[in-house]
């Protein structure tokens, strides 16, 4: 009987973790469909940044209420990972609270009590989040970008977390009652679950308590496996991706847009009088397109950004274009990029290679009206708690519109024509530049 339980446990573990790894590898493959970009410089600066922003939750407190409760849920998440060690040992060897037997009682009591306390704190936090999403309706969590799956996803995860934490409490409380009935040796310390559920369980028989305890344990374990695999479909992927994403984030000043080297070569050769303007450019020096029209034209970092986005909407709620009612929403830009690269990935899964599907990021997922509303103010970049850069994507898409399609708004074409002719965005002569001295 006992080893049957172990086999069942292992089968679930292998299935659950296997599926999880397969999905992660698919995401990795999708991300690597993006263009190369080198972010391996300054590793120590990057590590520090990751430690501060992702591990230390450095930007969360910019919104104090959300930040505070998020940090609790995050701590809960870390501790659950520690607990997983014990779940695995007990699950495989059919033991009960194995760690309690090998580490000092004081320490074990401390760890279990912390867990017990965090479980309740997490339940309170996710309830607060649920209320903010559905009852007080915080605007950035209820805007039109989120209609459909994103909204369900946001709620679903809160409910899952709630019931998983509840399973932990009922398991602990059943355990205490068993200990009180002298059915179990005293192991661990669970003040909070006893306070909350102790009375409800105290009249129950040893048999029912064991059932409650075991089924809660299984529920919790299967819940973790389910949660892991749910991540793939969810904005909650950020609990993993926030770490690499902050590590590989942009270290330059926010005002510095990247420079396109292929263009530098071409401009230099155009301006160099010693080069024959009619000579054919050597093969391979010119990229097939300037800027980005599809998700695969973006860099892998921009795609990693898209998978990391938590859909928190901090970017959009600070975007001046969005605040004044324009269609642009930097959060939606990130969500569209993820949708598109996911569609490309599914296409590859199905066909082995990508088969043209008549769609692209620009036009089918993101419209030029959204792109032209951006003031490049960097408010979105500043406000993102996981260091995502929506602006770089907006610029790459604009580059395609302008350099490949000459599809800028008419007034911008005039501005650029002036710049070409007079070296100024307005129709003034360059020879008048110093007139102010004499006026």
């Amino acid at each position, binding site marked *: 009987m006992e080893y049957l339980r172990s086999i069942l446990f292992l089968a679930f573990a292998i299935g659950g973790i296997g599926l999880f790894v397969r999905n992660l590898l698919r995401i990795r493959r999708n991300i690597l469909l993006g263009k190369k970009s080198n972010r391996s410089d300054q590793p120590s600066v990057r590590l520090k940044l990751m430690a501060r922003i992702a591990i230390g939750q450095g930007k969360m407190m910019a919104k104090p209420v959300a930040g505070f409760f998020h940090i609790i849920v995050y701590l809960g998440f870390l501790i659950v990972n520690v607990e997983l060690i014990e779940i695995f040992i007990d699950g495989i060897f059919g033991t009960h609270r194995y760690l309690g037997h090998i580490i000092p009682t004081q320490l074990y009591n401390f760890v279990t009590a912390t867990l017990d306390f965090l479980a309740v704190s997490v339940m309170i936090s996710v309830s607060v989040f649920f209320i903010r999403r559905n009852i007080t309706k915080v605007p950035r969590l209820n805007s039109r970008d989120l209609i459909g799956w994103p909204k369900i996803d946001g709620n679903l995860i809160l409910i899952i977390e709630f019931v998983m934490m509840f399973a932990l409490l009922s398991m602990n409380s059943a355990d205490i009652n068993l200990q009180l009935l002298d059915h179990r040796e005293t192991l661990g310390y669970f003040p909070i679950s006893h306070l909350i559920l102790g009375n409800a369980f105290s009249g129950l028989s040893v048999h029912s308590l064991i059932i409650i305890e075991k089924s809660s344990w299984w529920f919790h374990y299967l819940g973790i496996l389910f949660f892991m695999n749910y991540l793939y479909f969810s904005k909650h992927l950020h609990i993993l991706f926030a770490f690499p994403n902050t590590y590989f984030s942009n270290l330059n000043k926010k005002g510095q847009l990247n420079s396109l080297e292929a263009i530098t070569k071409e401009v230099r050769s155009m*301006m160099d009088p010693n080069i024959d303007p009619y000579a054919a450019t050597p093969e391979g020096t010119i990229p097939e397109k300037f800027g980005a029209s599809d998700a695969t034209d973006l860099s892998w970092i921009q795609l990693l950004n898209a998978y990391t986005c938590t859909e928190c909407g901090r970017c959009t709620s600070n975007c001046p274009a969005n605040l004044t009612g324009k269609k642009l929403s930097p959060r939606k830009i990130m969500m569209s990029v993820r949708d598109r690269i996911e569609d490309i990935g599914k296409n590859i899964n199905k066909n082995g290679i990508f088969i043209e599907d008549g769609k692209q990021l620009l036009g089918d997922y993101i419209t030029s009206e959204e792109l032209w509303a951006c003031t490049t103010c960097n408010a979105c970049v500043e406000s993102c708690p996981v260091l995502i850069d929506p602006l770089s994507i907006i610029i790459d898409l604009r580059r395609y519109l302008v350099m490949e399609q000459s599809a800028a708004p008419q007034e911008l074409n005039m501005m650029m024509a002036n710049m070409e002719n007079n070296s100024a965005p307005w129709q003034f002569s360059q020879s008048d530049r110093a007139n102010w001295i004499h006026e």
Partner: protein
Amino acid sequence: MAEYAAEGKSPEVLFWVGCSGSFDERAKKITKAFASLLQKARIDFAILGQEEGCTGDPAKRAGNEFLFQMQAIMNIEVLNSYEIKKIVTACPHCFNTLKNEYPQLGGEYEVLHHAQFLQNLLYEGRLKVEGGNFKGKKIVFHDPCYLGRANDQYEAPRQVLSALEADLIEMKRCRQNGLCCGAGGAQMFKEPEKGIKDINIERTEEALDKSPNIIATGCPFCNTMLTDGIKVKEKSLQVFVKDLAELLNEAIN
């Protein structure tokens, strides 16, 4: 600058005027105020005059990297031919582009925004405020995106303004959380997309909420946008939009 070079001299600093500062009627006043401050501080400076071209900022942000690089490389050739080391400009867009985007194309200079330059002059005592023209006046400062968020310069303009001994107040959205005036990213040159409101109106309303006497800016584009906003709100007679260089120049005789 050509004259300096003809005499075989080089100035302490090159004043990069920028397109707005050269041609826009309102912005020319900022240019003159800053030049006057440079003279008051006895700074030996030059301008490129006819040899200056647009830095290319609006082209780059509109997505025309090609045109941007043409502009940049032409400007870099001129700057390098005069062996320019240090540049100051009153436009945050020029400042950002010269400082952050020219080095990749071979243009390496020490670039300062006029707020930083003026802050230094005040600190070194080369400029001194007397008279207290602005005592009791309420000044609210609007952070230009390309000075603040883009380059983390939040304190220099505030330091300059605090030298005026005025009452410096902050809007709800300031510093890192500042709100764009609506002109950046080449928006200055086009009509905004459809929405419920223009960005400059939203920002002007925020500033007016603080009932200031003066809205201070450090960018010619912000200046235009907020001046327009004040006009729409029919406050042109009560509230003035001024560049920090203009304010400082008024405070120093």
